[in-house]
């Protein structure tokens, strides 16, 4: 055994990595719980990859077969219903924890210098996660998913200059058709996974390079606070969190498997009660409330431009909030809370 270990060590030189992990420490303070969110996201990502590959064994991304092949997976394939349900619920869990991760970082201002690049790769990973959700939503090809995709892919049209082209790229032409379905599938199973692997590599590397961020208030206390060794103490706790999450996930997946609507018909009127995934509800409600014309401008264009400006500001938050401890930093924290309250309020309203 030792001979084998020495042989591998001589060739890969992994001792340095092991030494790093042995020395790694996790700060201990009242916000330590947020440190668990990152690995929980990775955990759900792993589940998504495994269940996604298995679903793709039988799924067929074509106009004629998509809906029927999903029906076949959930009715004929052994445990297919559970795989699909776990894939769908794990997506929800993952995105929910992505939001918790993000809010934890925003409120403890963990993005401050020198972690700006970590934040930006994180925002890109958030965008990729939402894109995963959006493209995956169409794949069962039922009435609701078709209408939601039409709306979602029409929105970029309002962006000046490149908007129409972007919509064309997303839809594979001017309209949502069978080509859109193949395109969404290939984005979902190939383009986005490659992008996520690359971004995640950079993100995780940066997190290790800078070490865990400590909240401002803790940092101000001076002197290094208490820590937990990463290995094995923190890793064992994370494993416990994973087990609890897995139990929750499988329980919910068993009792609340997602349904499958009738096959989408490109010529049929949009069905009543279309609704996007829960994480897009606040955008959906905002669009519904925006009037057709504002100050002589097209209301939809105004809405999309406001949303884009908001996303841009959000992506560059570390550069805007460059004096986090001062008054400006407090105002920005207040605005982040207001944004959160807005998103939650709008989401709840859209469900009423």
């Amino acid at each position, binding site marked *: 055994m030792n001979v084998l270990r020495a042989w591998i060590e001589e060739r890969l030189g992994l001792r340095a990595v092991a030494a790093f992990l042995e020395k790694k420490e996790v700060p201990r303070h009242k916000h330590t719980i947020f440190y668990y969110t990152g690995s929980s996201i990775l955990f759900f990502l792993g589940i998504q990859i495994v269940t996604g590959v298995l679903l793709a064994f039988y799924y067929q991304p074509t106009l004629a077969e998509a809906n029927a092949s999903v029906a076949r997976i959930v009715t004929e394939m052994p445990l297919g219903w559970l795989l699909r349900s776990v894939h769908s619920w794990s997506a929800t869990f993952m995105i929910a924890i992505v939001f918790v991760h993000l809010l934890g970082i925003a409120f403890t201002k963990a993005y401050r210098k020198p972690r700006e690049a970590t934040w930006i790769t994180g925002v890109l990973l958030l965008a990729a996660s939402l894109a995963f959700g959006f493209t995956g939503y169409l794949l069962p090809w039922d009435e609701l998913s078709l209408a939601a995709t039409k*709306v979602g892919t029409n929105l970029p049209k309002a962006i000046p200059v490149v908007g129409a082209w972007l919509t*064309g790229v997303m839809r594979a032409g001017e309209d949502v058709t069978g080509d859109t379905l193949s395109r969404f599938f290939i984005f979902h199973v190939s383009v986005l996974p490659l992008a996520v692997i690359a971004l995640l590599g950079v993100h995780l590397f940066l997190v290790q390079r800078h070490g865990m961020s400590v909240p401002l208030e803790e940092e101000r206390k001076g002197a290094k606070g208490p820590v937990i060794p990463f290995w094995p103490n923190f890793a064992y706790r994370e494993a416990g969190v994973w087990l609890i999450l897995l139990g929750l996930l499988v329980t919910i997946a068993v009792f609340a498997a997602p349904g499958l609507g009738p096959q989408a018909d*490109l010529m049929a*009127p*949009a*069905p009543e009660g279309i609704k996007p995934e829960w994480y897009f509800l606040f955008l959906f409600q905002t*669009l519904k409330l925006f009037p057709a014309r504002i100050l002589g401008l097209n*209301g939809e264009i105004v809405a999309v431009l406001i949303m884009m400006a908001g996303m841009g500001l959000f992506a560059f938050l570390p550069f805007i909030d460059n004096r986090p401890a001062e008054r400006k930093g407090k105002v920005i924290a207040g605005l982040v809370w207001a944004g959160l309250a807005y998103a939650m309020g709008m989401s709840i309203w859209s469900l009423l």
Partner: protein
Amino acid sequence: MKLLYSLFSRRAFLNSLIGGWLAALGAAFISPLLKYIVPPTREPDQVSVPLAEVQDLAAGSVQGFAWGNKPGLLKKAEDGSFIAFVGVCTHLDCNVSFVAEKRRFYCACHEGWYDENGINVAGPPPAPLRRLAVSVEGDALIVKKQG
């Protein structure tokens, strides 16, 4: 004045040269790829609907037909003539339906309403439904792009 040594090292020169080449090569490859990404869209120039299919339509009611990839809506006016629309909401592209008892077109996605002439009257739609030109030729209705 003669400089004793170059301000620009040989290595820096070669680095920027190869960098420039790679950038140019990349750009040359990207533009055809970008072209490939969006396929050409073929909106039909005209669509023909057999008259027999719509003759029995009651005045004020609506029947669907295929306008390429999109639903078209054919409405019989009180005087027996036909008007046609592209049955796609001008707000965010959902397909609309005709609600006969209200004599209005309705988009379920964001609750947009159009009157029976396709004029946007309530909700978020910013413009009327797109009209198509209808003419009778022999035993068929010919629906064409307007204008």
